[in-house]
């Protein structure tokens, strides 16, 4: 049962690839997603810089991208990926659809976190004569910080799931090992160990996120 064709080095490479894909797409996705999320919150009707038209355009676009399943997204944007990074195959190429997948998701999560900040806080900020940018910086973001950390934890875990599918474009990573060796070559050891590694990943990320959020929220 524990006969396997897979080497330790392959595992380590897989872990490294997964971390690389998750890290890069999380970084870029968070930056763009957070900006989009903030725009969604402040531009909607009753927001601190209401631009209902911008909201009306941005909102359905985000919904549209989010409704495309990741595996289809990978294939659908291959020409765009090739243009951008020179190839549509490999770990770096997989980052492009990962970013496009995770950015609207993060935007939505950030929007929800920021909307949790009570209208009273915003009112207090406005009564102090804070500019819209000051409201975002000194009131919205700090008050939502704990919730934002939890949102990013959720996004990270989604990304780990998505990287497994990146195997479809030769993305590499832990998920790729599970599919190629575990599934296609009936290598049970590879299958079980990749699952264990993924479970550990998710557990560590979730509990770290929870701990951080609790620390920030001081409850």
């Amino acid at each position, binding site marked *: 049962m524990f006969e396997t064709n897979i080497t330790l080095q392959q595992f380590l490479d897989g872990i490294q690839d997964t971390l690389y894909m998750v890290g890069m797409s999380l970084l870029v996705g968070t930056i763009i997603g957070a900006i989009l999320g903030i725009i969604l919150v402040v531009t909607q009707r009753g927001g601190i810089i209401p631009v209902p038209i911008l909201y009306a355009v941005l909102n359905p676009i985000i919904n549209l991208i989010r409704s495309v399943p990741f595996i289809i997204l990978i294939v659908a944007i291959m020409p765009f990926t090739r243009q951008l990074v020179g190839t549509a195959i490999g770990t770096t190429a997989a980052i492009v659809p990962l970013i496009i997948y995770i950015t609207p998701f993060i935007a939505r999560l950030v929007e929800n976190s920021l909307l949790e900040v009570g209208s009273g806080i915003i009112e207090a900020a406005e*009564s102090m004569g804070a500019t819209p940018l000051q409201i975002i910086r000194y009131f919205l973001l700090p008050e939502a910080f704990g919730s934002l950390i939890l949102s990013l934890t959720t996004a990270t875990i989604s990304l780990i799931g998505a990287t497994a599918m990146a195997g479809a474009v030769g993305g590499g990573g832990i998920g790729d090992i599970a599919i190629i060796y575990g599934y296609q070559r009936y290598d049970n050891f590879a299958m079980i160990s990749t699952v264990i590694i993924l479970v550990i990943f998710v557990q560590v990320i979730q509990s770290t996120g929870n701990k951080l959020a609790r620390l920030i929220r001081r409850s």
Partner: protein
Amino acid sequence: MIELQDIHKVYEKKKSEVHALKGINLKIDKGDIFGVIGYSGAGKSTLVRLVNYLERPTKGDVIVDGKYLAKQSAKALRQIKKEIGMIFQHFNLLESKTIFQNVAMPLILSKRSKQEIKQRVTELLDFVGLKDKASHYPNELSGGQKQRVGIARALASNPKILLCDEATSALDPQTTQSILDLLKRVNEKYGITILLITHEMSVIQKICNKVAVMEQGEIIEQGSVLEVFGHPKHKTTKNFVQTVVKTELPEKIKQRLTDKGIDRLLKLEMVGTEAMPPILVQLIRDDQIQITIEFMDMTEIQDTNLAIWYLHFDGEESKREKVIANLEQHGVRIEEVSVGV
């Protein structure tokens, strides 16, 4: 200091319009503690938010410290807002920041120096009695302490006006008293004009010098607190006044008087520090008038008392006129009332 001129506010809902304020006229002088009282939905929250333009009027002018708010640029308006502090029913403190940081916020927004901020915040925390809580977080404080932080924060930028939006409504009576004392000190020490809204007449009684009563988007009565408490005209005002001052005869006494066949009473009212006007004592002693005090009530308002007596006059009619004239001359308000159960 604050002037509202013929203010109308209409909220457009999907299919209906809500007329929240209907022609409000109000003038608040420098140094006033002006109270606006009304039941929920009367429009008082909207009214207080007009003063710092958190709400814009549909029609009418808001003039603060001589400036027409409608004519100000966004930037100028923010500057004006810095001269108007505001405290809230639910405090609206930043849960993620320490008490120090909360109080410092208006100064941070104005980009003051670290040293100046530290000095000012320490001074304010000392003033509100929370010097030892500087490094605590809001969720470690009681409601009353949170409101003290709110007050310190509102004072940070040296405002000329303080707006209080139901500032004591979430607090117990004892805490309410201590917050009201603090507001009074704010008014006296810094000369800050205070506009407060409340649904508790006792709040008005304890600290306000002027009051306006609101109902369904209109001011139905306004004047000095002594005037309004002594002579409420409108039914709603009477209801509010009744919650703290017994200006009307209690039902049981009315019943007893009717049983005795007494219908006509003299209602005396006087503002002062004595429980009984010296003139009345003198009349009883020198003119030998015979009276029965059927009911009396004395309420502390601001630094004086509002005393009300219901007397039954037992003497001859000839003396009656003289007594009334004499009392009126000495500043006692007299009214003939019928018990009429």
